[in-house]
C-alpha cells in the first residue's frame, strides 16, 4: 500500500486555480460573444474527446458526448457559480455524461483499481545484476546500462517518423495507461485534473503514468537502437 504522505505531497504540489481570467471569459460567454465560445471549443475539445474516449467504445460515441457536453454548457452557463474553474466545471459535465453513456454501452473501464497490466518490473530484470552479485546487486550490468540516444534537442525534435512510432506505441498501451499518459503528457492536464476527471487516486494515477512512460521510453530505445547500439559519434541531422 502507498503511504499516506505521498497523497498529501501531490495535493500540495498542485497550484491553486486562478479565477481571474475565468471571470472575463464567463462574462463574455454570458453576453453571447461567439469568439469566446469558439476559443474554448477549439481549446478544450481535443482533450475532451480523449477523456470521453476512455469511457466509451467508439470515436463516434466520444464525439457525441463532447457535442452533448458543449450544448449542456451553452444552456447551463447561467448556473455556473464559479466555485471551480470553468474548465473543471465543463470537464465534470463531460465525465458525468461519458460515464452514463459508458454504462449504457456496458463498457466499464475499472478506473478505481489497478490490474495485472499495472504490475511487475518496467525494465527487463536481465539488465541488472542479480541479488547475489557480490559488489552491486540490483545495479545495471555493463550491457544493460542505458546508452545515450544522441538526440539533438532541435534536430530530433520531431521527425514525423518518431511521431508515428510513438503514436503506434501509444495504441499498444492498455486503455487506462494510454488515457493517463495522453492527458498528462500530450494534453497537459495536471495530476489533480486527471484524478478528478477520471475519478482515480493520486497513487493510481502515478502508477498508470509510470508504466505508460516506461513503455514509451522502451519503444524509443528500440527505435534508436534499431541499427545496433548507438554509435559513439554524434549523428549529424540535416
Amino acid at each position, binding site marked *: 500500500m502507498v503511504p499516506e504522505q505521498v497523497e498529501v505531497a501531490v495535493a500540495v504540489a498542485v497550484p491553486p486555480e486562478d479565477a481571474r481570467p475565468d471571470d472575463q471569459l464567463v462574462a463574455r460567454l454570458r453576453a453571447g460573444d461567439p469568439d469566446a465560445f469558439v476559443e474554448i471549443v477549439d481549446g478544450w475539445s481535443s482533450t475532451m474527446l480523449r477523456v470521453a474516449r476512455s469511457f466509451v467504445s467508439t470515436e463516434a460515441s466520444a464525439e457525441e458526448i463532447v457535442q452533448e457536453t458543449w450544448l449542456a454548457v451553452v444552456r447551463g452557463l447561467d448556473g455556473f457559480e464559479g466555485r471551480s474553474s470553468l474548465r473543471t466545471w465543463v470537464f465534470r459535465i463531460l465525465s458525468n455524461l461519458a460515464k452514463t453513456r459508458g454504462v449504457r454501452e456496458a463498457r466499464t473501464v475499472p478506473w478505481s483499481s489497478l490490474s495485472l497490466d499495472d504490475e511487475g518490473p518496467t525494465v527487463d530484470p536481465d539488465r541488472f545484476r542479480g541479488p547475489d552479485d557480490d559488489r552491486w546487486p540490483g545495479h545495471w550490468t555493463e550491457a544493460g546500462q*542505458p546508452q545515450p540516444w544522441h538526440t539533438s534537442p532541435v534536430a530530433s525534435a520531431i521527425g514525423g517518423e518518431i511521431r508515428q512510432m510513438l503514436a503506434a506505441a501509444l495504441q499498444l498501451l492498455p486503455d487506462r495507461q494510454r488515457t493517463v499518459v495522453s492527458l498528462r503528457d500530450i494534453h497537459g492536464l495536471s495530476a489533480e485534473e486527471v484524478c478528478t476527471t477520471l475519478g482515480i487516486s493520486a497513487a493510481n494515477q502515478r502508477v498508470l503514468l509510470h508504466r505508460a512512460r516506461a513503455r514509451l521510453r522502451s519503444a*524509443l530505445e528500440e527505435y534508436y537502437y534499431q541499427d545496433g547500439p548507438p554509435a559513439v559519434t554524434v549523428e549529424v541531422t540535416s
Partner: protein
Amino acid sequence: MSSEQQGVPDDIACQHLVEIVTDYLEGALDPETTAAVEYHLTLCAGCSEYIDQMRTTIRLVGHVPVDSLPATVRDELVAAFRDFHAG
C-alpha cells in the same frame, strides 16, 4: 579510492530507482528518498541516462498529434451558441 568504493551507494539499487523515477519526477517522494535518488544520480551514469531518457520521452510524446472535433460539429455548436443567445 579503490574501485570498490567508487560505485554507487547501496541505499538505492538501479533496479529500484527505475521504478520510482516517476514518483521522483512528480515530486511525490519523501525528502529522504528524494535525497537518496539525487545522490545516486550524481554517481550513476546508467540511471542519469535513464532519467534523461524519461524526460526526453515526455517531451517527444507531447508532439503526438491529437484528434479534433470535426469542423461540421464545431460549426453546429457555434450556431447553437448564437441561436441560444439570439433567442
